[in-house]
């Protein structure tokens, strides 16, 4: 039910969604895909570093938390590492449920947790240099909304 993949290679969004839809009880599937955007001064590469071992462990824990919190029939998280170029897909999450609200909320939850709890670091390489991407305070705030007393269930 939980599928976590950490890979240098590309992935097939359509095949992943179809895999998650399988079974008579799944009514709703939500997917999120993140891609490398170009930056103002021209992005040559985005290099993604990760912490082998901890990455798989953290992503699995985040998926398990979502599956505990919402009635899901499936959760998929795929995240790439290594050297990517603008337009490449970086990662995807997908959630399957009988109910659309659960599928949407669980997918947003996965993204918010993944952004600040999964050990990935992005470096942008342009013609003028290389810079580590700085974490956004909004990403911590987005994650913290799920632990408020009135957090959506």
């Amino acid at each position, binding site marked *: 039910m939980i599928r976590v993949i950490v890979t240098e290679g590309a992935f097939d969004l359509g095949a992943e969604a179809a895999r998650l839809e399988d079974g008579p009880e799944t009514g709703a599937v939500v997917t999120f895909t993140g891609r490398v955007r170009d930056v103002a001064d021209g992005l040559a590469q985005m290099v993604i570093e*990760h912490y082998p071992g901890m990455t798989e462990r953290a992503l699995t824990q985040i998926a398990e938390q979502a599956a505990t919190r919402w009635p899901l029939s499936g959760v998929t998280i795929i995240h790439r590492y290594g050297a990517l170029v603008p337009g490449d897909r970086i990662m995807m999450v997908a959630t399957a449920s009988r109910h659309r609200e659960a599928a949407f909320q669980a997918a947003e939850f996965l993204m918010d947790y993944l952004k600040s709890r999964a*050990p990935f670091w992005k470096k942008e390489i342009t013609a003028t240099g290389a810079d580590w991407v700085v974490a956004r305070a909004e*990403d911590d705030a987005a994650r913290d909304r799920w632990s408020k007393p009135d957090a959506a269930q």
Partner: protein
Amino acid sequence: MKSFQVLYFAWLRERIGLGRETVETDATTIADLVAELRRREARYDLAFSDMASVRAALDQDLVDDLNTPLGDAREVAFFPPMTGG
């Protein structure tokens, strides 16, 4: 003295100049270990100069507080705030 695998990622790895080393220490908390590393050499001192930008994991579990005891952990990792997704 206990022995730990210490890992560094992203700009911490670049500033320190290595990704992994074995450290023998009497430090009892993560913060103690950081203090000891900073006393070693300027590159460690620089890498750990802004602790608000440093996160740590013990045996591949993120810790919320750098005063967490090292306990029986074998692997300690230091890295900047994560930027996946």
